[in-house]
C-alpha cells in the first residue's frame, strides 16, 4: 500500500477531540516515517554510544556494563535521623547518597537565626557546623560511597565540610567522589535560593572549579540543573535550552579565569527532570548530549573527549505528583523513571507517592527505590543501548528540540548572555508564563492529569505521613550552642578574618573556607562574613 492511499484512509478516520501536542508545544503527527528523517545522517547525528556526538549515550556499553546509580535524595530532621535513613537506604540496595538540606542550611543560615524559625529540619537535614556532617556520615566510608549534595549558595562550605569529614576518616580529598549542585544561575532563574548577587556567586563557583581541578579531581563541581527550571513551570524545551545556556556560561567563566577547558569541563555534570510526556523527555536527553558535545568541541575548542560528555542525573517530576489518589504517583513515577533510563541517565531519583504531603515515609521511599530496581532487573530495558534510537518519532523530536534550543541560545545572546538576561527577568518571565499556560491548559481540559481534572474522586487520601517533631529545632539549637562553647573561639575569629581578607583580595576562597570549617565556624558565620564583602541579592518581582 502506498503512502497516498494510507493518507486518504486516515483523512476519513475520526480523531478524538484533543490537541496532539507535546508539553513544549511541538505538534505531534499521527505517524512518523523515514520521510521525517530525511536529513538524518547516522554517523553525523547519532554515531555510536561513547562516540561523538554521543546522542546514543556517553559510554560504550552503557547499562550492559554498569546500571545507573540509584540515588534517592534524602535528608530530614537531625543529622542523627538522616544518618539512620542513609544506612536504611544503603541496606536496601541504594548505591549512592544524596543529601537534602533544610532551608536554613540552603540559605547559609544557622538554626538559631530568626529567619530559620519553623524551618529547621523540615525540608531536609539541618547542618550548622562540621559536627553535624560528622554525624550524618558516621559509619559511612567516604572512600567507598559517592555523595551528591544539593547545595548552592553555601556549596563551598558544605564541600569543605565533606573534605574535612574525609580527613577525619583518613580519606584524602583526591579520592573523594561526589557532586555539589553549585549551580547558582538556575537559582536566580527558577529555584530562588540565593545569598549574594550573581557576579560574586560566579566568582565563588569559579573558585571551586579551580580548587577542585587541583585538589579534589574526582568531584563533580557543578551539577548544571534543569530540574528546578522545569519544576518552576518551564517546558521541556525551555529546560533543555536554559540548562545548556547556563552550562556554557560556567565554561566561559572558567576559561576567563585562565583555566584550561579540558581540565575542568570533564567534572561538569547535569541534572534533568523527567516529566509526563514520555517521548519528549527521552528526546530531550538525547538532544542535550548532542548539543553539549558539539558546542564543547566546536565553540569552546575542548580536545579531551571527556569534556564532550554530558553525564546527568535525573529526578522524576515532583510537580506532577498529585495529592489526589496518591497511590497513582507510584505508577506516574515509574513511567517517568523509564523515560530517564531510555534516555540514558547516569543516576536516578524516583519520587515517593506521598511527597505532595510531606517528606516521604520509609515505606514510600522503599517503593520508589523498588521501582528503579524493577526497571533494572525485570523489564529487560537495560539490555540494549538506546533502544529507541532510530525510531522515526524519537529522532524527529530530538531534532526539533535541538533546533528549538539553538533558537533560545540566540535570544539569550541578544541580551548579552545569561547574567544580563537574568537581570532583565527573561528566564523568570518565560518560566512563569509557561507555568500559567500549563495550569490553564489543565483547567480548560486541553491537558489531563488523572485525579486532577479527569477521573476525580472525592475520597480524601488515606496514607501515612512523616512528621518532623517540633523538638528537632530546639535540639538542633541546643547542639549548636554546645559546639560554640566547646570550640576555640579565638581561632574561629581569626579564620573568619582571613576569609574576609581573601574575599577582598580576590584570592581563591576554598582554602580559607576549609580553615573555617575545621575549627567549627558555623555556616551562618561564614556566609555573613562573605556578605560583608559581596552584599545580598534582591530579586526583580515578576508574575
Amino acid at each position, binding site marked *: 500500500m502506498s503512502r497516498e492511499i494510507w493518507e486518504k484512509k486516515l483523512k476519513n478516520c475520526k480523531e478524538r477531540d484533543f490537541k496532539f501536542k507535546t508539553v513544549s508545544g511541538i505538534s505531534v503527527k499521527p505517524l512518523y516515517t523515514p520521510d521525517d528523517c530525511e536529513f538524518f545522517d547516522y554517523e553525523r547525528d547519532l554515531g555510536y554510544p561513547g562516540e561523538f556526538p554521543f546522542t546514543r549515550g556517553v559510554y560504550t556499553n552503557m547499562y550492559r556494563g554498569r546500571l545507573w546509580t540509584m540515588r534517592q535524595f534524602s535528608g530530614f530532621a537531625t543529622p542523627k535521623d538522616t544518618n539512620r535513613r542513609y544506612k536504611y537506604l544503603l541496606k536496601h540496595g541504594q548505591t549512592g547518597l544524596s543529601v537534602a538540606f533544610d532551608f536554613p542550611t540552603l540559605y547559609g543560615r544557622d538554626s538559631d537565626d530568626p529567619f530559620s524559625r519553623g524551618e529547621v529540619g523540615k525540608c531536609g537535614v539541618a547542618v550548622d557546623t562540621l559536627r553535624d556532617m560528622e554525624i550524618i556520615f558516621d559509619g559511612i566510608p567516604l572512600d567507598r560511597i559517592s555523595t551528591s549534595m544539593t547545595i548552592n549558595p553555601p556549596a563551598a562550605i558544605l564541600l569543605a565540610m565533606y573534605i574535612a569529614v574525609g580527613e577525619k576518616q583518613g580519606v584524602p580529598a583526591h579520592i573523594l567522589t561526589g557532586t555539589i549542585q553549585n549551580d547558582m544561575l538556575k537559582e536566580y532563574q527558577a529555584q530562588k535560593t540565593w545569598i549574594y548577587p550573581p557576579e560574586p556567586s560566579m566568582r565563588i563557583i569559579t573558585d571551586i572549579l579551580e580548587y577542585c581541578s587541583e585538589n579534589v579531581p574526582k568531584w563533580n563541581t557543578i551539577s548544571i540543573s534543569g530540574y528546578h527550571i522545569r519544576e518552576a*513551570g518551564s517546558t521541556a524545551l525551555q529546560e533543555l535550552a536554559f540548562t545548556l545556556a547556563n552550562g556554557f556560561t560556567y565554561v566561559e567563566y572558567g576559561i576567563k579565569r585562565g583555566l584550561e577547558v579540558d581540565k575542568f569541563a570533564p567534572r561538569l555534570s547535569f541534572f534533568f527532570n523527567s516529566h509526563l510526556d514520555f517521548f519528549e523527555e527521552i528526546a530531550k536527553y538525547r538532544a542535550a548530549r548532542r548539543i553539549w558535545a558539539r558546542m564543547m568541541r566546536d565553540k569552546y575548542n575542548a580536545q579531551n573527549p571527556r569534556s564532550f560528555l554530558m553525564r546527568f542525573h535525573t529526578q522524576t517530576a515532583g*510537580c506532577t505528583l498529585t495529592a489526589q489518589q496518591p497511590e497513582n504517583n507510584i505508577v506516574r513515577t515509574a513511567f517517568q523513571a523509564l523515560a530517564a533510563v531510555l534516555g540514558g541517565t547516569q543516576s536516578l531519583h524516583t519520587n515517593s507517592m506521598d511527597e*505532595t504531603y510531606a517528606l516521604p515515609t520509609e515505606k514510600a521511599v522503599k517503593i520508589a527505590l523498588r521501582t528503579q530496581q524493577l526497571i533494572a532487573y525485570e523489564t529487560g530495558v537495560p539490555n540494549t543501548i538506546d533502544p529507541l534510537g532510530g525510531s522515526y518519532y524519537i529522532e524527529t523530536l530530538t531534532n526539533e528540540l535541538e533546533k528549538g534550543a539553538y533558537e533560545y541560545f540566540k535570544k539569550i545572546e541578544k541580551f548579552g548572555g545569561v547574567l544580563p538576561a537574568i537581570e532583565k527577568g527573561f528566564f523568570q518571565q518565560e518560566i512563569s*508564563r509557561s507555568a*500559567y499556560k500549563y*495550569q490553564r491548559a489543565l483547567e480548560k481540559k486541553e491537558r489531563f492529569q488523572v485525579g486532577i481534572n479527569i477521573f476525580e474522586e472525592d475520597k*480524601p487520601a488515606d496514607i501515612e505521613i512523616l512528621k518532623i517533631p517540633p523538638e528537632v529545632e530546639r535540639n538542633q539549637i541546643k547542639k549548636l550552642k554546645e559546639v560554640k562553647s566547646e570550640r576555640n573561639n579565638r581561632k574561629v575569629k581569626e579564620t573568619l578574618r582571613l576569609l574576609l581578607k581573601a574575599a577582598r583580595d580576590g584570592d581563591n576562597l576554598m582554602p580559607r573556607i576549609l580553615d573555617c570549617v575545621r575549627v567549627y565556624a558555623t555556616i551562618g558565620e561564614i556566609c555573613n562574613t562573605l556578605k560583608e564583602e559581596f552584599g545580598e541579592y534582591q530579586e526583580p518581582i*515578576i508574575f
Partner: protein
Amino acid sequence: MDKKIRVLVAKPGLDGHDRGAKVVAAALRDAGMEVIYTGLHQSPESIVEAAIQEDVDVIGLSILSGAHMTIFPKVLSLLKKKNAQKIIVIGGGIIPADDMKKLKKKGVKKLFGPGAPTTEIITWLKENVKPGKKKRAQTRKKNNKGL
C-alpha cells in the same frame, strides 16, 4: 462602580517555591482582582505591614517548606495585635490534612491543597470576601511589575 477584591499574595520564610504563588497571582489578576505579590523571603512582620499598608481584603500565604504551623499563627497574631483582623487569611501549599484542621481552628479561613484549580480559589474569594471601603481609590502597586 464595582469594588475589586484586593489580595496580597505572599511567600513567607525561606521557601523559594514560587510557582504556585505566581500562578495564583496571575489567575486572580485575570479574574479582575487587584493583586499585590510580595516576592520571596518575607517575614510575617513585613507581610502584615504590607497588608495593612496596601489595605487588602485578603492575605494569601503560599508555603511549601513545612513551616506552616509556625508562620500562619504568627501572621494571625500579628494581625490581631495591629487590630486588623478584618483581613482574611487564606493559604495553600504542602500542608497535611491534620495541620489544615488545626490551622482552620486557629483562624485561617481557607486552605487549598495541591491540585486545586485556580477557578476554585477565585470562586471562593468571590463568595466569601466583600471588598471593604478602600482608603485610597487609586491602586498603588508596590514592587509589582506584572507581566
